[in-house]
């Protein structure tokens, strides 16, 4: 029995540690700023970080399959601008949203194709993709475009009450993010696609030798990331009711940091989506603490995220060392 618990701890150690840090951190913050104990403040994390969560979910998949996608934040910005511009041209909003998703998916798949077929570094391809998307966003509009469409407005302000918490609410797009999150857990754990993804991340060659569809899976992973980023873009444009090429300037880095904090190894093959959620929540908690404090300047967010990332990497390495000792 004890051995079993030990094994479970070793396998899920980083994840448990992330959750622990979040809970303890949030508890301490709650003691310092009593307002943070309100359930609404907690659920605000989901409202404020819905887009980041969506991007981070896509990023988790990419990172697990031993890649990286730097184009997510730019794709988000491009989606906001494109949808705002299309709305201005009086296109039906229910046409625009699927269109945006198709754009994200096809762009992601295209990147995946170049990475997989033409054997160019994922880092370079997605970096170029990021430049390309931002540039396209600026080509569409150099300035911020406001959204006045009633459908977008009502969707963006649609509150969903949390059962059991009285008046506490989240917005509709947070619910969408949560649904994608649950779907991602299912996909990663229980589908053939998800398991292939882990296999590729661990060792591409052996995955290929096992007869797994490496090429298709990798392209699909990038397509999924593109889907998540354009969905994040829709959520973002619903939240802010405008589109602008400069939105989310470094969100890809926030997403990567959240993924790392969630216990996913950047070398691929190890990690899960649940950890990513807590990575995002930790990120959001730091930001809300700064807001509650009011005197701390915004740069402490960056330093805080950097230090935490370092901390989590240290913990991961400890667990890895522990696992190796166990194996030998």
């Amino acid at each position: 029995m004890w051995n079993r618990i030990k094994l479970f701890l070793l396998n899920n150690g980083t994840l448990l540690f992330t959750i622990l840090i979040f809970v303890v951190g949030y508890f301490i913050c709650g003691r310092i700023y009593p307002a943070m104990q309100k359930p609404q403040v907690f659920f605000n994390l989901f409202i404020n970080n819905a887009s980041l969560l969506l991007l981070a979910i896509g990023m988790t998949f990419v990172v697990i399959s031993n890649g990286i996608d730097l184009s997510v934040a730019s794709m988000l910005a491009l989606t906001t601008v494109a949808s705002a511009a299309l709305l201005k041209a009086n296109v039906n909003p229910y046409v625009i949203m699927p269109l945006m998703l198709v754009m994200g998916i096809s762009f992601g798949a295209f990147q995946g194709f170049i990475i997989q077929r033409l054997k160019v570094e994922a880092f370079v391809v997605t970096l170029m993709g990021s430049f390309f998307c931002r540039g396209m966003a600026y080509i569409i509009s150099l300035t911020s475009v406001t959204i006045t469409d009633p459908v977008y407005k009502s969707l963006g302000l649609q509150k969903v009450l949390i059962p059991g918490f009285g008046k506490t609410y989240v917005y509709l797009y947070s619910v969408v993010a949560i649904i994608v999150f649950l779907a991602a857990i299912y996909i990663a754990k229980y589908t053939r696609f998800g398991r292939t993804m882990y296999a590729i991340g661990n060792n591409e060659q052996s995955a290929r030798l096992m007869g797994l569809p490496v090429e298709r899976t990798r392209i699909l992973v990038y397509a999924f990331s593109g889907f998540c980023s354009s969905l994040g873009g829709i959520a973002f444009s619903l939240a802010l009711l405008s589109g602008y090429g400069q939105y989310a300037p470094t969100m890809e880095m926030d997403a990567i940091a959240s993924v790392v904090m969630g216990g996913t190894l950047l070398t691929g093959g190890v990690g899960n989506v649940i950890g990513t959620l807590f990575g995002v929540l930790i990120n959001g908690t730091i930001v809300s603490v700064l807001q509650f404090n009011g005197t701390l300047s915004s740069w402490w967010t960056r330093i805080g995220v950097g230090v935490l990332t370092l901390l989590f990497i240290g913990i991961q390495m400890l667990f890895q060392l522990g696992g190796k000792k166990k194996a030998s």
Partner: protein
Amino acid sequence: MKKSNLFDKFRHSRLFWPLMALTILLIFDAFYAPSFFKIGVLNGHLYGNLIDVLNDGAPLAIVAIGMTLVIATGGVDLSVGAVIAISAAMGAVLINPALGNQLITNDILTADRTNTPLGLIVLADIAAGTLCGLWNGLLVSRVRIQPMVATLILMVAGRGIAQLITNGQIMTIYYTPYFWFGNGFILGLPVSIYIVALVFVIAWLLVRKTSIGLFIESVGINSRSTHYSGISEKNVKLFAYTFCGFCGSIAGLILSSYVHSCDANNIGLAYELDAILSVVIGGTLMAGGRFSMASSILGAMIIWTFTLTMYTIGIPANTLLAAKAVLVMVVILLYSDQVRGLINRLGTKKGGSNVESN
């Protein structure tokens, strides 16, 4: 198509592809923006777009030299932009006495004088950047964190640190001698070009005249076998990252001197990306191994030639990003073995007719 021996040799040289790209760009300029080649003399200084390419591209070229070494060891340094900001912030703070929260009148701030001697400022700049590089190097070589994550930490935190140094202010510099690095002229040419040359010579002497270059390539090709052949692969990596930090600090010095200010949020923004692009355009593989610093400098020049060309023909700065992305993607695809194989196959079939690369 005549293929002399010399041409063949040149074609397989590292400089061939970057030079080709640069030539194509310049030919494009010759047709669409003939004014690009105009070089005039004003107050004894040369000026013109080509000089601008050299001057504006200088910080990038310096960063690219450091980045080449890091990439050659099989790593990558994402923190150079943050290092630039830290080093620039260091310089700006030492000049302006705006430390802490004490009340300082506008007269003191805008006076053309400095709080610290210039030599000390430069030293502090370089020390700050080199320290950042050392930190990266320690994380990568001693703690064994993957390079991308290790430098990501400083990339995220670095700008925060720079803002901490400047207390969140955009610091304007009014001290004239400091401007010399970015705006001065020696023999009619901008000082920054000489600084690039100096850094390049230092790097070249270090790398090619000692065995360090060989060690770096060997670490990039196979770090474990390097370790087993008795080379301290840790110290080689430590050196590469530290040197990259050093290069970043010099770029920060030039940039802050060029714009007469330090905005910790925006100075050197996306330089890490441009530096990586320069290296990739220069033909050094991201996987590590053989490298060429000269072709990385050429890569930086290509990026700036392209940028200034786009400005010249009147494309808005922001939309430039998309064009840049397409350019670099084409260049990188030309480098990829798959596409090259395709071109070679088509070339032998059709006897070297022009081939579209996708």
